């Protein structure tokens, strides 16, 4: 059936700011949906308050609304735009919940908006546990004994009846928030209480735990003709009990017989048909490792993290096809976009194996609870492809950018066997490395299987790697023979690991390897195991067999190094810049080559760059691609710190980098050289010194004078940074052993903080707007609220900011894009740091000023001059007759043990924006979804002291200040609105964490609190698409010129 021509415009709901459980994968799916709908000629209206996304580019939608994802805001957009259809299955759980709420509130009916794709009844049946269980019962599909409970009493009755272990899953939450497995009544009561609190409908599903079963997922698609296909199945290496988002996952399944594979597939097809889904659906099963008994665990009636992974793992673009199905097409009439010679109604055949590893945030949060369970904790993931299991595992590990040396986990060698065993029993995130360490020490596979329930197939693969490690260690770079070397490479041992093993440099290993003629081949991901000719240049490396890359177009090639997995401090913003760079290069007539390993992103959509390499972002893999493709130009400025970290090695290997040299980076990152640079340029910098040990540190801190800011060199996301107010506090830190040397000591200036993103050709600069942080210096820029344009800076301060940026760019002769951070204190503007790369704020600046910074920077990297591409008049600060507020979004409530207090270490996972005519309205938009949930709340709990001015302001706003009584009782009250702890006392961390676990706002900065109080004065919100605001900007600029 062809597309539905009764539709003209479609509203698409995005997933909002990045949180754990809902990350970049929904930018990928949303972008695909936008492209799919636009190419069918529909007017696409998009609502998503996440500015870092690619989907919210004007090219992907006709109207983009950065508005809160609430029923009221979306209704206002519907009233304004009057879309014919609504597509809600591309915005994760947020989108699905929104569709459900709009339906329940009668909004869809009122405005005659049709829900496209999966019907509301199917969403309900998939999401409402009771309805779902009833349907499964009808179909004869087994689900574990379970019960929906809305009270602790009901839960206890169930537990007494079936016994433990029992799994607790709160209804309608992201990434299984609040759930867990209880082994006894005590744990059970705690989890049930928490789960009920987390669920927006105060409902939990409690069920018999099938922990230890194999966890198998199917990605299924269905069209309106009831054609059903399974795009891919995936097997979690970690058995049921660890959230699939935190599990090591392989595709396709490795340990299932055809009988088992087809049994689960038939069940999946039966379920998707019965639910009546149109589009994509993820179905999770638990399979008994010792029989054919299986249980259905979960159904997600929408595209998901798993579907993004499946799309990249197979080449089958699930979201794109799902969007076409939603507007009426059937699978058999859509062409397979990879082969371009076959159709979408088939099931991909893989002739390689895919491994996904989660990227967990415990390097940033060493004190957080590292146990994995049903609540997802990973911020991102990496994917690796190879023809054998061992190298696929190794590539995935290399892609994590962790501290491991090959398969040796950091700090595990010092642990006793019992301690390592405990990590396995606890399902600690370090379990993979712990298993390898135990195997290395001769612990039997059988024992490890007993402790982990991981299938022996995978453990045997790990054991094979340990044997090969020993084989490598028994040779030297001089004695190794060609077949052994080749086999070690085939099984994934990196040059860096071999260098470490042999005590030589990585480039020595590389040289030797190439002398022996051992280089990788590249094979194609083609959806069909080579059965049909395929048109798509999507490649992975392997060390066995022929290279099958297609001939290049003959155009000049540019390599863009991606940013790898999403982690705290390096999020989706970097993917935005990478993708924009690709677009700019293509417009300029270059052939673009992308290397990245993050399956969630748009940059790893094979339809984006001309050639895609799914590889670890290590020096070795990047050099291999550069050599294989004979690349002359490499761009490192859009891949975050990941790409910047490769600069030194690439330069040493003689690779020409566009716009930047290692010396420039070193001048900016080496504190001494950096301060020298600023002094040469007559730019004030914060007084700072460096210490090599604890004694020096104490002496130099005293010399600078407290408060001081301590930080290691070369950091991103503020890892290991501390503000120290006194000698005593410093002594305590030294005592705790938290510091690593050499350490940088800066005076901590209690001033305003601002930053700017600039594009430069080394002569002129383009600085579209200055971002001013709400909080004072000392709060990480990623965790601060911030205004665009700056709201309180004087013209003189702004002029200095621009002037200093120009001086730095010119002095360095830097080309491309950079981010500069400033502190404004005592009438001075200090330059705090310069990042020679695209920053977190590039997308937000580009979107709210209308200046495509990453694209302009790309052109500058190619050698164009700024005066030629940007008009003189357009190079000044943008006139913005509106206020843009960027606000951080934290996932800390999913990470027990993480203190919500903000400081120099970044903790947020994402960001949102609100745009309004006034600052107050913008502040209101930022806090309004929270305030709505707390409609009856008016109590503020104050821990420690607040000043009289704040107290008066709160009282004036009818807020009740509470400062005594049981805090634990108070947080449970409906009247609890927020917690204030401006003193940030270390020993109050528990209260802050308790508040957080109840999802209460915690203010530890006076300025954030003031912003919140400002928001309380507003009671309305207007919705406006971004092009509306930019239109106002244009008018204002013309008025200025006139």
């Amino acid at each position: 059936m062809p597309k539905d021509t009764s539709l003209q415009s479609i509203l698409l709901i995005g997933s909002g700011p990045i949180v754990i459980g809902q990350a970049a994968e929904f930018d990928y799916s949303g972008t695909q949906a936008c492209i799919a709908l636009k190419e069918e000629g529909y007017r696409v209206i998009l609502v998503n308050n996440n500015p870092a996304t690619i989907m919210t580019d004007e090219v992907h939608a006709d109207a983009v609304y950065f508005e809160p994802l609430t029923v009221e805001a979306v209704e206002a957009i519907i009233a304004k735009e009057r879309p014919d259809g609504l597509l809600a299955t591309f915005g994760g759980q947020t989108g699905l919940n929104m569709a459900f709420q709009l339906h329940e509130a009668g909004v869809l009916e009122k405005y005659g908006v049709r829900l496209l794709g999966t019907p509301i009844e199917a969403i309900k049946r998939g999401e409402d546990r009771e309805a779902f269980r009833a349907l499964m019962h009808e179909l004869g599909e087994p689900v574990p004994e379970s019960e929906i409970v809305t009270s602790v009493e009901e839960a206890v009755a169930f537990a007494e009846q079936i016994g433990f272990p029992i799994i607790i899953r709160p209804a309608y939450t992201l990434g299984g928030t609040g759930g867990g497995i209880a082994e006894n009544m005590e744990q059970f009561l705690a989890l049930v209480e928490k789960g009920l609190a987390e669920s927006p409908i105060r409902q939990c599903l409690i069920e018999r735990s099938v922990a230890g079963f194999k966890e198998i997922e199917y990605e299924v698609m269905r069209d309106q003709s009831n054609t059903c296909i399974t795009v891919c199945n995936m097997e979690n290496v970690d058995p049921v009990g660890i959230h699939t988002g935190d599990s090591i996952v392989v595709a396709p399944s490795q340990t299932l017989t055809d009988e088992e594979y087809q049994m689960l597939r038939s069940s999946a097809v039966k379920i998707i048909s019965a639910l009546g889904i149109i589009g994509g659906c993820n179905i999770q099963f638990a399979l008994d490792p010792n029989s054919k008994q299986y249980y259905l665990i979960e159904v997600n009636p929408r595209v998901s993290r798993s579907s993004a992974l499946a799309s990249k793992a197979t080449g089958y673009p699930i979201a794109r096809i799902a969007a076409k199905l939603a507007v009426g097409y059937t699978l058999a009439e859509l062409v397979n976009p990879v082969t371009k010679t076959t159709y979408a109604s088939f099931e991909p055949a893989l002739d390689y194996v895919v491994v996904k590893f989660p990227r967990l945030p415990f390097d940033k949060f060493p004190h957080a609870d590292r146990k994995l369970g049903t609540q997802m904790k990973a911020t991102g993931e990496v994917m690796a492809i190879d023809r054998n299991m061992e190298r696929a595992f190794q590539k995935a590990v290399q892609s994590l950018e962790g501290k491991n040396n090959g398969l040796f986990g950091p700090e595990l060698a010092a642990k006793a066997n019992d301690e390592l065993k405990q990590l396995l029993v606890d399902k600690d995130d370090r379990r993979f490395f712990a298993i390898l360490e135990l195997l290395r020490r001769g612990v039997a596979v059988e024992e490890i299987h007993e402790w982990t329930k991981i299938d022996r197939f995978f453990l045997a693969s790990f054991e094979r790697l340990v044997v090969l490690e020993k084989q490598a260690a028994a040779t030297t770079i001089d004695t190794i023979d060609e077949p052994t070397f080749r086999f070690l490479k085939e099984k994934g041992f990196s040059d860096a690991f071999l260098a470490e093993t042999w005590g030589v440099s990585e480039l020595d290993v590389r040289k030797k390897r190439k002398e022996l003629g051992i280089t990788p081949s590249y094979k194609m991901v083609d959806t069909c195991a080579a059965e049909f000719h395929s048109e798509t240049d999507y490649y992975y490396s392997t060390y066995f067999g022929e290279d099958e890359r297609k001939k290049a177009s003959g155009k000049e090639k540019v390599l863009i190094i991606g940013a790898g997995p999403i982690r705290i401090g390096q999020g989706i913003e970097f993917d935005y810049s990478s993708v924009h760079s690709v677009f700019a290069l293509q417009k300029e007539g270059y052939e673009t080559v992308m290397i990245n390993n993050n399956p969630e992103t748009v940059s790893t959509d094979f339809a984006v760059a001309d050639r895609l390499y799914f590889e670890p972002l290590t020096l070795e893999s990047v050099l291999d691609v550069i050599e294989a493709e004979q690349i002359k130009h490499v761009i490192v400025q859009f891949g975050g710190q990941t790409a910047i970290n490769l600069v030194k090695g690439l330069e040493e290997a003689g690779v020409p980098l566009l716009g930047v040299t290692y010396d420039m980076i070193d001048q900016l990152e080496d504190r001494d050289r950096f301060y020298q640079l600023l002094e040469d340029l007559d730019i004030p910098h914060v007084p700072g010194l460096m210490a090599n040990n604890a004694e020096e540190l104490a002496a130099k801190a005293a010399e600078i004078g407290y408060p001081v800011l301590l930080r290691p060199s070369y950091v991103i996301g503020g890892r290991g940074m501390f503000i120290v107010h006194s000698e005593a506090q410093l002594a305590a830190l030294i005592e705790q052993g938290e510091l690593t040397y050499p350490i940088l000591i800066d005076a901590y200036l209690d001033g305003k903080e601002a930053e700017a993103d600039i594009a430069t050709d080394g002569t002129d600069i383009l600085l579209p707007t200055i971002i001013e942080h709400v909080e004072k210096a000392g709060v990480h820029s990623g965790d601060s609220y911030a205004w665009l344009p700056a709201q309180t800076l004087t013209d003189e301060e702004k002029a200095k900011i621009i002037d200093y940026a120009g001086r730095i760019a010119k002095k360095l002769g830097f080309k491309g894009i950079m981010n500069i951070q400033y502190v404004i204190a005592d009438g001075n503007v200090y330059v705090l740091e310069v990042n020679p790369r695209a920053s977190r704020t590039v997308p937000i600046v580009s979107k709210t000023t209308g200046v495509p910074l990453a694209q302009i920077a790309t052109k500058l990297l190619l050698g164009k001059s700024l005066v030629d591409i940007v008009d003189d008049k357009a190079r000044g600060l943008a006139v913005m007759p509106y206020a843009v507020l960027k606000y951080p979004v934290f996932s800390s409530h999913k990470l027990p043990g993480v203190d919500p207090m903000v400081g120099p270490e970044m903790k947020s996972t994402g960001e949102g924006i609100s745009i309004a005519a006034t600052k107050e309205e913008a502040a209101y938009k930022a806090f309004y979804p929270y305030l709505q949930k707390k409609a009856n709340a008016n109590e503020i709990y104050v821990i420690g002291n607040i000043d009289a001015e704040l107290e008066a302001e709160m009282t004036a706003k009818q807020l009740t200040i509470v400062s005594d009584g049981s805090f634990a009782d108070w947080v449970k009250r409906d009247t609890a609105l927020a917690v204030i702890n401006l003193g940030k006392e270390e020993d109050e961390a528990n209260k802050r964490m308790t508040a957080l676990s109840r999802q209460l706002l915690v203010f530890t900065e006076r300025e954030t609190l003031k912003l919140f109080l400002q928001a309380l004065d507003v009671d309305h919100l207007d919705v406006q698409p971004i092009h509306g605001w930019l239109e106002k900007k244009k008018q204002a600029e013309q008025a200025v010129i006139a």
Partner: protein
Amino acid sequence: MKAYLHVASGKTFSGELAAPLEEKVSGEIVFFTGMTGYQEVLTDPSYKNQIIVFTYPLIGNYGINEDDFESKRPHVEAVVVYEASREGFHYGAKYSLAEYLQHWNIPLLTHVDTRALVKEIRTAGTMMAELSLSPIPAVADEEAVFPVRAVSTKTIETYGEAGPHLVLIDFGYKKSILQSLLARGCRVTVVPHDTAPEAIDALKPDGLVLSNGPGDPKQLSPQLPAIRRLIDRYPTLAICLGHQLVALAYGADTEKLRFGHRGANQPVWDAVKQNVMMTSQNHSYVVKEGSLVGAPFDIRFINVNDGSVEGIVHRHKPILSVQYHPEAHPGPHDTGYIFDEFLQTVFKGENVYA
């Protein structure tokens, strides 16, 4: 030990033997794209005399069990993979892949760039190949063998207690066809491929099933008049080779595909249900669409990828004939309803035309 696979197009692929080879074997080389189901493939009689290449690189992970055989023994001439698991890790595994093949003296060649080999087959078409201990190519011509005779039963045997009585003519049937019928409450008598029509009449069947089998259907030309007589008399379900024989019996023609359909993901459009099913397939030969013009059949099933004929139904008589494998094993179970449709015609008792 190293061994060499020489394909008729002139290329040689080297690999390591994991199950022994005495000097050399030869056969037609074909590839299977399913990611599971190697045990079923090895024991499917339709692969008689063929060298099978598995495109999925890790084969043997779950070993060989006692339940998933499609016949009593493996029929392939040789097996080619990238990696064969040394052990079968499944609870049901009785042997490793190599142990099982060794038991039947079938060579297993590992560490081969199977993707490159598949691309060669895709380009050059299905061809003869020789697996040899010698690196010097010497590919034998296609021998004029008659594989159906080698795999078809020599005796008549009845399975099941009650229910409608079906005669399954065995051209090399897969056990799953028999099981699909037994599971639906039928009594099934399996007879040799060349059983005379009178002998079948004497069994008083309520319906007839023509099984799958190896090789070129035209090798069975002498049998076509007998087949025609039988299918005109009894409700008939024909599968794979059986389907090709139905078409030939009605004067249509068959031809060889360049590299056949072998896998678990072949999309087939059903003109009656108006949607697409994923099917399991294993065939080199196909019924020529144009040759059906004069025949009293409607084309009900079409391959979405290449538009080839995947199944036909007689306009007036209860003859249902499919190219794909509704019994699955390996592969998706989406088309099991074909057995139900067939059995409905059997239950109606439409077996008197004479």
